[in-house]
């Protein structure tokens, strides 16, 4: 993937090739993380890399959306902050939900019940409160598997 500098900035962890290491799963899980806070982005990247995930980071929701559109099937899961200027996490979630079939985790320092409720009702597969611990990130692969399993079940049904 190329690094691009448009309205936002994006940088990709260097990948040695396409992820096909089913044996190594969840290592190599392709994560897109979106947060306008550079400190958070830096910490998340380090944590996710420690989990052996393949990390792409964006500091703007619009950039994240174009990356996702440009690389269909290029990601397994999206992690996004809620409160961001311009497009926020909820709007990003709505777009992703309608255009592609990806699990989205919302994160925020905001733990107010209404916001968490909103996240869940909008279709986030999880809502994490900052500061997020690395132990939590080690388990996010479950959302990917769960979604795939659910989709497979739906296909069988119909």
């Amino acid at each position, binding site marked *: 993937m190329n690094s691009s500098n448009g309205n936002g900035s994006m940088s990709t962890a260097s990948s040695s090739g396409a992820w096909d290491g089913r044996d190594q799963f969840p290592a190599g899980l392709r994560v897109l993380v979106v947060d306008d*806070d*550079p*400190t*958070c982005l*830096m*910490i998340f990247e*380090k*944590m996710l890399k*420690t989990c052996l995930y393949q990390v792409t980071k964006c500091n703007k929701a619009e950039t994240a959306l174009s990356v996702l559109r440009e690389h269909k099937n290029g990601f397994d899961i999206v992690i996004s902050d809620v*409160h961001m200027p311009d497009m926020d996490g909820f709007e990003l979630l709505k777009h992703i939900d309608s255009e592609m079939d990806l699990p989205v985790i919302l994160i925020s*320092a*905001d733990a107010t019940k209404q916001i968490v409720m909103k996240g869940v009702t909008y279709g986030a597969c999880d809502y994490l409160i*900052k*500061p997020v*611990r*690395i132990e939590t990130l080690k388990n996010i692969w479950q959302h990917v598997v769960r979604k795939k399993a659910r989709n497979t079940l739906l296909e069988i049904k119909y």
Partner: protein
Amino acid sequence: MERNPMRRQLASLRKSLFDQGYLDEQFMELEQLQDDANPNFVEEVVTLYYRDSARLILNLDHALERRPLDFSKLDDIGAKKVKAESTLFREYCKSGNAEGCMRTFQQLKKEYATLRKKLETYFQVPFFPPI
């Protein structure tokens, strides 16, 4: 063995920062992320945090000359006292208490500057820009 006294000094400085409540488990999490690939990770994160939040605080300063702002965007990296102050700030914002906002914000800036000085001493590097 010149490094030993320095290391001991650094270790005791670190311990006092935890004892005084300036740092908490979050800081330890950052330390655990540090490895051979990123040997200065903690310092880099803290430097980035101070650069970013200094800008934020400046914006807030300007905005508070006009009206109170929502503080939810200010993130913390385990600085307990700063976090406590910003929660209070938000409460005052929600209840429309201008005087409370101003007071809390001034206190927050003080705590922020204090922690910053301590961390600069700990990492032996100044965080640009100065407040």
